Each structure stands twice: as C-alpha cells, then as structure tokens.
C-alpha cells in the first residue's frame, strides 16, 4: 500500500484553513500507519467533533465521525468487538478534555488499546475561537475577551496520572518526531496518548498577536523543551518557565491492557 492510498482522495481538498496545523498531523498519522504496514481493512479511525475531528473523514479506511466529546467511548466499543483492529482516535483539546474529560480519564484508566492523537490548538476552532480548558492563562479568546483567568490542563500529565501506557508530546513543527511517536503509540499495547501542540491561525493567532502562520510555528518550536533537557534542568533545580512545555516521550510502560490482541 502507498501513502496516497491511506487518503480518501475523492474527499480532498480538505476544509482546513490555510496554515492550519491539522493537515500536518493527519499526514504524520497516515505516514505512521503506512510505514508500519498496517492493514487498512483492519484499521479504524474514530473522532469526535471539531476541526481536528474532521480528520477521520479524510482517511480511506473505515471511520466514525461521532458526537462532541464522545470519540473515546465509541472507539472503546469498536475495539472491544474487534480486538485485532488498530483503532486510532483524532480529537481536539476541547473535544477531549472539556466535554469528553471524563471519558478521557476512564479510557486511560482502562488502558484500552487505542491510539489517541490530540490536536491541541489551545482553542475551540470550529465554533469560532472560544476558550478551551487548554487556553493559556491570560490568552484572548471570544469568551475570554479580557484574558483567560483559569489555569490550563496539562493533558499529558492527566493521561499519565490516569494510567495510559504511552504518553508523548510534540508540535506540528516536529513532523519526524511526531510520526515516530505515533508509530510507537500504535505499537505500544494499551492507551497511547500523543498530544500535538498546533497552530490555529484563524481563531487563536488572529486574537493573540500572531497573524503569521510561520510566527505561530516559531513560537511552538521556541516554547518546546526536549524531555532530556527538562530533566536536566529539573535536577539542577531550574523550573520550567511559564508558557514552555516539554516535548518527547513522557511515559512508556507495560501496565495491564484492556481490549488488546490476545
């Protein structure tokens, strides 16, 4: 199979805005499935609702575009019935952690054998730029016109605490690392959570003084601290600066799995 065959060609072009990071993440995901040589007929994509969740519609294999926040329980049903399928979930930060927050915690606790790719643009893109549980403190959104006054979620920390077997974070800039992380996630039994910090020029950049896509990607890159470096800093007593985040493989473990291949 070729990479192109993983795309539902007759649905392209996609609906994403110019400069949106979601297309990059979809590319990395399908590159990973293709490189691993997954059986397209035994691969299912599941997503909730949001710009990010539209990604399932551009894959050529079976796919479920479900309801807002509920992708994980739908995917759980698929996986429990078809344990020999690779089930990959596309979700957004709002979809996963606001309306779907409880499902997220429980999917990680069950450590069900799914690969979850979260496109975290720190905003609600599809509904036009409202604040999300991942909107940075102080950032402007249409529902936080005076600046966000709630602290954001650290989704990887949630996944780790709740029990996921594999947790990694990258950005839309790190395409090679991201592809490898998704590969590792698919190969690791249990719940794999891959968070991708990404740019939404339309709803986030425009309100937060980042009109250029390149500027947004530069900021993502500049704010990324590799895990090794962060560990060294921590050992030396240097705290993570506000606004920075750790990228890399954060967790890989072998806890008991639900719904895995027997």
């Amino acid at each position: 199979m070729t990479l192109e065959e993983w795309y539902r060609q007759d649905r392209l072009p996609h609906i994403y805005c110019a400069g949106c990071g979601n297309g990059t993440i979809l590319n990395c995901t399908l590159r990973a499935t293709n490189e691993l040589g997954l059986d397209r007929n035994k691969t299912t994509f599941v997503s909730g609702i949001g710009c990010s969740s539209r990604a399932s519609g551009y894959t050529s294999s079976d796919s479920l575009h479900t309801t807002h926040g509920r992708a994980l329980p739908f995917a759980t049903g698929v996986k429990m019935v078809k344990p020999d399928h690779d089930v990959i979930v596309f979700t957004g930060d709002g979809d996963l952690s606001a309306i779907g927050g409880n499902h997220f915690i429980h999917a990680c606790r069950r450590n069900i054998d799914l690969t979850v790719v979260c496109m975290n643009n720190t905003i609600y893109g599809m509904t036009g730029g409202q604040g999300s549980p991942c909107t940075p403190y102080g950032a402007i959104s249409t529902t936080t016109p005076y600046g966000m006054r709630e602290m954001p979620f650290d989704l990887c920390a949630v996944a780790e605490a709740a029990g996921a077997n594999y947790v990694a974070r990258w950005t839309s800039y790190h395409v090679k690392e991201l592809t490898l992380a998704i590969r590792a996630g698919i190969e690791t039994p249990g719940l794999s959570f891959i968070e991708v910090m990404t740019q939404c020029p339309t709803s986030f950049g425009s309100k937060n003084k980042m009109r250029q896509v390149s500027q947004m990607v530069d900021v993502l890159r500049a704010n990324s601290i590799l895990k090794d470096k962060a560990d060294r800093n921590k050992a030396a007593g240097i705290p993570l600066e506000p606004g920075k985040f750790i990228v890399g493989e954060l967790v890989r473990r072998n806890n008991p799995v639900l719904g895995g291949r027997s």
Partner: protein
Amino acid sequence: MTDKTEFLNGNTACAEGAIAAGCRFFAGYPITPSTEVAERMASRLPKIGGTFIQMEDELASMAAIIGGAWAGARTMTATSGPGFSLMMENIGYAAMTETPCVVVNVQRGGPSTGQPTMAAQGDMMQARFGSHGDYSIIALAPSSVQEMFDLTVKAFNLADRFRTPVFLMTDETIGHMREKVILRSDVEITPRHELVEGELPFRPGVDGVPGFGTFGHGLGVHVTGLTHDERGYPATDSADLHEKVVRRMVRKIEDARNEIADVDIVNPDAEIVFISYGAPTRAVQQLLADYPGIYGHLNLRIVWPFPDAKLGEFGAAKAFVVPEMNLGQMAREVRMHTNVPIVTAAKLGGALHTVAELKHAADVAATATAPVTEVVL
C-alpha cells in the same frame, strides 16, 4: 439444543433473550431498576465469546454500543429514565447513521431521579421524540417475563431489518417480577443485510434500507452524524439533500407501520375497548377474565411506530380506555388517530391499576361524550 424452562425475573429474561438473539456486546451503567440486565450479561457474555463492559456513564454506554455495532456485533445497553435522558444525543446519532442497536429502558417514576424502585411508563414520548431533529424509531413494550425474552429477540431483528435503534420500553414491574419463561433455543434471527461491494453505504436498497457496511470488510465506510450523501460523506449545505435524507429515514419506518405492528386483539365487537401496553396490560387481562365478553382489548407489543390501523378493527367502539402509568402519553397518540371518545386512566406512583379502577374507568367510558375524559382513580 432444547428449550429450557426457568423461573426468572423480567430483566434476567431480557438478558437471556439478547444472548439468544446473538447479542455479543453489552455496554452499560448501573441504574435501578434495570441493573439485573447488566449483571446477567456480565456473567454470561464472557462464557460465550462475548464482551461486557461497564462504562463511566450512559453517554459512553450508548456510544460504545454504536461503535460495537459498526464493528460487526449485535449490541445492547440497558438503563432507566435518567440514563435514557443522557443517551439521547447518541440515540439521535444512531438514528442519523442508521446503526442497528437495542436500548432497554426499565422505566421508573420520574421526572428526575423520582422513584428508583417503583414502576412507571413516563418515558414513552421521550422514546419517540427525545433526541433533537426529526427521526423515527421502533419501540416494543413487553407485558410478561416471557415477552421480555421474546420481544428482546424481536428487537434485535427489527434493528437489523430497519437499520435503526430499537427500544424495549419496559418498567420496574415487568423487570422485577418472576414468572415461568421458556428460553427458546431456536429463535429466529433475521440476518443483517450487508453492504456489498459496489453498493453505496447510504443508498437505500429495494426496501428503503441501505446495506450495512460493517467495519473490517474492506469497504472503507465513513460514518458521520452530519447530514451525508449516499457515500456517507458530509453534505451539510444542501436543503434538498437534507430534506431527502431525513424524509427517507423517517419513511423507512413510518411506511412499514403495518409490517412492524404487533398487537393482540380481544373482542373486536365490544363497545368499550381498552388500549394498553406493558404492565397495565396485566390488569386489563384480569378485568376481561372477571367480566367475560364485555370489553374489548387492544394490547400493543409495538408502541412506536404507533399501529394506528389497528384501531379500525374495533368497528363498534363507543369509547377507548387507555390505562397508563403516566399522565396520558400514549392516549395523546391514540387521540390523533380516532374520533371515538377517549378515557384516560392515569396512575402514578408505581402501583398497578386494580381491576376495580379499570371497571370504574369503563363505567365512565360507557357514558363519555367528551373527546378526552380523565378519570380520577
């Protein structure tokens, strides 16, 4: 294999019916008075190659059975009123995506958490109209433990035949009462009409129902709750397409009312006719036994789509009496299809109608002239 006769409660018989029908995936969340369905499935499914999962809530349970259905299993969940309310968004998704699945609602007193251990029939309109938008569903109403078994089997067959969520609208009385039940070993199973290569996953076949594109068959089916074209691709901007899609999905069920209808008709020449479903059917049956040959009875085993043509079988009817454990939800539907006066005999709180109460309602009906008369029991 031979039939087994057992003395079971209704909820357990429902679980056995599901297993006999080939249900191999159950996802649920505990709620009184439905929990025995889940408990029986939890103990039985792993032994026969099926899967049980207790989800974090009812939204997740409904989502999981839809996912499981696309993965190829016959799937079911069971709940009661508050959980049924939580399922509504995903029930609409199942209707829009034409996903066959079965939802059991063992009704209890509402609104809200109401009376957890008492029977009611207060969710009949929610079953029909609870999710947003226009759609149609099928709902069955057992009135005995045997029917809990038999109608659960039937629910799965109807779900596959019409590619729709099907509800078993039962209540605490039937769920918890124990009766002799024959666990049939030779139940009829309607095969799912599978999508074949070259067909489109949302193009209606000869009977208005598209073939089901089970995942894993190499068909690459895309399923979305958005308005979609026959390929299953989102197409949300066309007024014409939306109208066509929604009308087809409603029509595939409404046009089959007569095929779907499942009723008992007793004394069709009677002047006073009872219309009942679920637990009140038992009280009506007792009244008819106590006063033989006087009253007519239309017992509905299918409540949605409402089998309105069956009202016409009672040509001599001067009044219909509708005893319900709600304030007249199905009586309102009966009213839509007849000009014969209707007497509603509503009873809340969980106790069954007594024969004396039904007799009183029948006496009122004998002189009723108003379109709708409510008897106070």
